[in-house]
């Protein structure tokens, strides 16, 4: 294959990775930014989103788009509810102490993972894409659904941005992020904001999972890799910075797509990890982060 089409394919693949990664990392970054909680169970919310998507899609018959849309609406809601309950039952009772919450979310990770294994099973199960179209280019074919994933992810990120900057809920969240105690003094129900943010973060991961599940399959161990990549993205972009998260996701996604095609996937992972190390040494707050007060 000639260089041009090769690069095009690499870029497309990279963009799909970036789109899903950005949504997932956005959730992680939001939770850390507002609550200062490192949510190790974030990958399992992603897995849960995919598994539920399979379940909802298999409930209805008829055109695959119906099942997919049902999953796209319900799966994030259920995952958000699970996260909400987990936050109320566990994290809030630990007073959001950093060490305790890390251990607690690790516990949550195993609980969710093993529940999925028990009730869903060890198989990888697919969800049918809402539409089945192959774009036939002169050099290779490409799935139209993958392009739709990129668009959907961009829309979701835009919606999150509007929510954070243009609505009252967003204002309350930002106030809580800026200074928890002052926000509380001004009558903001910090507890409820925390629970809401944790649920929103999980819901974003679930949306990412529903989008990816027609491409990959729902599997009970699928949460680990995206979790690691999200941490990489969030560290490079700056914990708590939304702009940084999106830029870093595109950077990591594209470099992963292009480097792994022209060289090797291992090299792409090595470079991403190296970048994390460099960022931590020279700019610990991340490329776009602000220094913690």
């Amino acid at each position: 294959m000639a260089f041009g089409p090769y690069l095009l394919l690499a870029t497309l693949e990279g963009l799909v990775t970036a789109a899903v990664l950005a949504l997932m990392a956005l959730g992680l970054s939001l939770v850390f930014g507002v609550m200062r909680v490192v949510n190790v169970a974030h990958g399992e919310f992603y897995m849960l989103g995919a598994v539920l998507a399979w379940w909802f899609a298999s409930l209805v018959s008829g055109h695959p788009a119906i099942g997919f849309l049902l999953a796209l609406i319900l799966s994030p809601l259920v995952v958000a509810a699970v996260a909400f309950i987990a936050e109320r039952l566990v994290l809030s009772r630990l007073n959001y102490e950093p060490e305790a919450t890390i251990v607690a979310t690790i516990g949550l990770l195993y609980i969710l993972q093993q529940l999925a294994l028990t009730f869903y099973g060890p198989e990888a199960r697919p969800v049918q894409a809402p539409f089945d179209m192959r774009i036939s280019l002169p050099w290779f074919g490409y799935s139209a659904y993958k392009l739709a994933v990129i668009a959907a992810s961009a829309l979701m990120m835009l919606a999150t941005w509007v929510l954070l900057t243009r609505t009252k809920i967003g204002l309350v969240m930002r106030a809580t992020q800026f200074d928890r105690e002052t926000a509380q003094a001004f009558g903001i129900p910090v507890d409820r904001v925390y629970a809401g943010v944790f649920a929103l973060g999980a819901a974003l991961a679930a949306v990412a999972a529903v989008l990816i599940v027609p491409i990959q399959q729902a599997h009970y161990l699928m949460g680990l890799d995206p979790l690691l990549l999200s941490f990489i993205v969030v560290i490079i972009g700056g914990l708590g910075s939304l702009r940084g998260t999106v830029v870093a996701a595109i950077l990591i996604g594209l470099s992963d797509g292009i480097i792994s095609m022209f060289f090797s996937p291992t090299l792409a992972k090595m470079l991403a990890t190296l970048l994390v190390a460099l960022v931590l040494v020279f700019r610990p707050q991340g490329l776009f982060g602000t220094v913690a007060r």
Partner: protein
Amino acid sequence: MREDRNSNILSSSGLTRRTALKGLGAAAGLMAAPGFVRYAQAQSSEPIRIGFQCHRTGIGAAYGRWYERVTTATAKLINDEGGINGRPLEIVIEDDGTDPARGSEVVQKFANQHKVDLVYGTLFSHVVVGSAPMAGELKIPYYVVSEGYHVASGKMNRYCVQPGITDVKAQVRSVAPWIADNLGKKVTLVYPDYAFGHDHRDFFEPAIQAQGGEVIAKVPIPPTETSFTRYFPQIPRDTDVIYHVMVGPAVLTFVKEMGEFFGSGGPQLFGFIDSLEAVDINSPGLEFLEGSHFWEGMPRYAQPDQPDYMTFYRETVGIDENGASRNDPQDVSTAAHMFGCWETLYVIKAAMETADYQGPDDRTKLIEATEAMTEMEAGREHPQGPKVFNGKIHQVFGEQNISQVKDGKLEVVHRTSIDDGLYEPEADYTTMSF
């Protein structure tokens, strides 16, 4: 905080009379319990205990679940027919998480804690390679139902045998002539980049060259990969056949993306069913496989001309004509491999009866009796077909199936002979000391 800590130390340090009495009482109760007395009886009525190293969790979980079902069904059948040497068979299961380090610990636990007679049932090659040294050290027989060439290569030890399933080298040699004659001679290999995939890479190339074919490209894929489109440009345009053998949960993506990439005008496909074990052939996205060919150890779909013992096997392990669980048509089995559990247990039974196995002291006799086996007739004990066991390399040889996907079902189109898979042994375990 400090007061709390002090009080804890105080309360836990003293052994009161009450707790001492409780402990004594519990110990007495345990001695009186029926389970405890049993061990005082004569050994001959005790069950023969087989430790089953099972992939209950981890990437092998789908295989593990079916290995467990077949093992349970076979053990029940053996017990219903009078057990082994008149003693019942008891299966003790431990989960190894499909992890080599854990696998080694499990072998240790079987030997020291459960005190089983032998260990059995491992599939994934890295777990076998990780666990076999421990089995050798503890001198406990280790009957694996894996597939890799590691046992036959001579790199394991005298306690490690594979009498119920053929190895990759034999499988690859069996199918290569058929591929060259029917699909094409220019082959591109797509394989996972670790031991199992390397076996395919190393043994397929000489096998296809012997048929006048050639491997024109090799595409190794990291085992944790989830997206494959990026690898397809490495497949040369003049490829006749793509030989694919992928494992793990991402295989559906692999096939689907290959379909998107090539469309209808792509090369022929020959795959190892390992790619799609426990996966419904009619899953969305797999339409692309229609007409392509697969290796199968044992056919997943009931074949019209199958012998009675095959039907009996399928009924006993609980799979329907599509190779899915009778209770849930969505629950597709790992039919091409799991028969190995059934056959291995029957080999163990036969070897124990020949060796007049009484207990752990007879372990070496058991291994020697297994090594002495040669021909195994097709039938109830060997439903997959006739086999020949080579005691020198602890490896069994058998027939292989080549199946084609037709109307969403796998139909056997060719069955290779035992001779197709035979190769020169590279080792001799029987000369090694116990």
